[in-house]
């Protein structure tokens, strides 16, 4: 089928003894931002095909939890914690759980080879995927927050804080999810860790902290989603203390940077074995 003999090809005269010294020009390297944008766009379209049903599940799960909790909590601080916790839970479901599963499966099936044989910075792959998964939590989180405010009679005035909460909590949780998925030696383990992380965000984030024993409260402080929940919950008060809100969001941001850096390192490690 191949009709072109090798010896008539351009440049083949010097084929046999190519001087080692004259190295061929390398193809271009993909730069960080354009390739990040390309990965982001591809991941977003993937999510559109494959993840919409799961987004509904995430949203209904949070709404269901709020309806259940309505009979249990009072209308004050506890209600604020439940609404904030349920909203951030949507982020945990998608960014932590689903991303951990995705990277776990990609790694196990050899799908990482595709990216590893392209001249793309590891950070672009990890940040692009994490960003896409975090973006996909936006509608679910907003719907949950609005529904919760209406259900518990909380003010809608400061819901704009979600503009900061979703990306920062999203970065922290997606970074964690990506790192877990890429570090887990087996895909089932990645799924398990993602599920456990989401369960922790559910139990420790949604249930009011005051009723918890000391140990659980300590665990709660270790979970990055907690700070997103706290920041969001504070804004429901009549006179929110913005310094604390900023402080909580800063913790999310720092965890996000660290966990995404770990995920990038984990990607590099998983890609070249």
């Amino acid at each position, binding site marked *: *089928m*191949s*009709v*072109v*003999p*090798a010896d008539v*090809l*351009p*440049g*083949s005269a010097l*084929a*046999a003894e*190519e*001087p*080692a*010294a*004259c*190295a*061929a020009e*390398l*193809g*271009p*390297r*993909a*730069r960080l931002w*354009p*390739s990040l944008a*390309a*990965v982001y*766009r*591809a991941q977003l*379209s*993937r999510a559109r*095909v*494959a993840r919409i049903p799961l987004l509904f599940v995430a949203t209904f799960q949070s709404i269901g939890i709020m309806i259940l909790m309505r009979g249990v909590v009072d209308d004050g601080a506890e209600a604020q914690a439940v609404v904030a916790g349920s909203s951030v839970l949507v982020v945990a479901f998608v960014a932590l759980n689903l991303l951990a599963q995705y990277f776990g*499966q*990609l790694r196990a*099936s*050899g*799908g*990482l*080879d*595709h*990216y*590893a*044989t*392209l*001249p*793309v910075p590891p950070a*672009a792959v990890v940040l692009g995927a994490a960003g896409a998964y975090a973006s996909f939590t936006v509608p679910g989180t907003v719907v949950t927050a609005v529904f919760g405010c209406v259900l518990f009679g909380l003010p809608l005035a400061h819901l704009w804080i979600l503009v900061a909460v979703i990306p920062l909590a999203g970065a922290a949780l997606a970074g964690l999810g990506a790192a877990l998925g890429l570090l887990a030696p087996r895909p089932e383990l990645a799924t398990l860790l993602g599920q456990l992380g989401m369960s922790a965000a559910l139990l420790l984030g949604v249930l009011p902290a005051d009723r918890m024993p000391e140990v659980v409260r300590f665990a709660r402080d270790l979970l990055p989603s907690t700070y997103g929940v706290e920041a969001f919950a504070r804004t429901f008060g009549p006179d929110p203390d913005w310094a604390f809100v900023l402080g909580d969001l800063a913790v999310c941001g720092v965890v996000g940077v660290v966990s995404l850096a770990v995920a990038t390192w984990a990607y590099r490690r998983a*890609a*070249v*074995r």
Partner: protein
Amino acid sequence: MCAVRGLTKTYPAVRGRRGTPGTPEVRATDDVRLDIRRGEIFGLLGPNGAGKSTLVRQLTGLMRPEHGSVEILGHDIVRHPERAARILAYLGQESTALDELTVSLAAETTGRLRGLDVRRARAERDDVLAELGLTPLAGRPLKKLSGGQRRLACFAAALVGERPLLVLDEPTTGMDPVARRAVWSAVDRRRAERGTTVLLVTHNVIEAETVLDRVAVLDRGRVIACDTPAGLKEQVAGEVRVDLVWRDAAPLHVPEVAALRDRAVESGRRWTLRLGPEEARAVVATVTGGAAFAALDDFTLATPSLEDVYLALGGAAQQGLVKA
């Protein structure tokens, strides 16, 4: 353009756990030496587990060898594995990274990640999809395509963002003849216009014979032969393959047939014999006349193929390369 010297990789022994027996240490590639010339289609042929994939992973910078060197177009890939991505395009066997994308987006994204700007990536995407006849499928997710179409879409992604070396791991698996022809004519066009080199991993002996300029036969991590397909076949040119298919069982009561049994490779009702031409003629005369003929269902007489070469060279356990 690509020189491989003394490439060795050993997978460590795995200790058995409950329910799973351990595996001993495996030399996946053992002192491999290859020279691939510019513009040729160079094949790696061998059965499953011969070390083809390991070798390719080492050439593409995905895996570090323990010893040895890989030089592609003057670049040391062992020392700088990240350069491989800027010299070659790799089509692996897995499509999971692209499965949920549309054909068009898979090709465009891959091009952008090869460093093309948006406009170039889109232009090249359109050209490649048109060239491979994939334009009607451009809007469909890879997941929804048949195996062969998906493979062709992955091949399209590998072509966007041109590279001087294409490393293709069984590119035509599952493809219909039209798609296969599209692949080989796309490869030929790139060779003729740009002197593109192709490293092809294959199981398929028939495809190997028709498309390859040169082929290295791998067995248990070693290169046991490396030549043109015709050159390799000359090594066993003295032999002819005789296949005998019996109706039920071989008529062992015929002394001539019973005498052949030791030299035949039996698989069910089929006996395969490798014989000199004179001998082959005698065998055919025997089985087509007399008592043996009644028991004979079918027979073929064939000149050697690459598969015969592989077996003659002492390939692993007389196991065939592909059912073709």
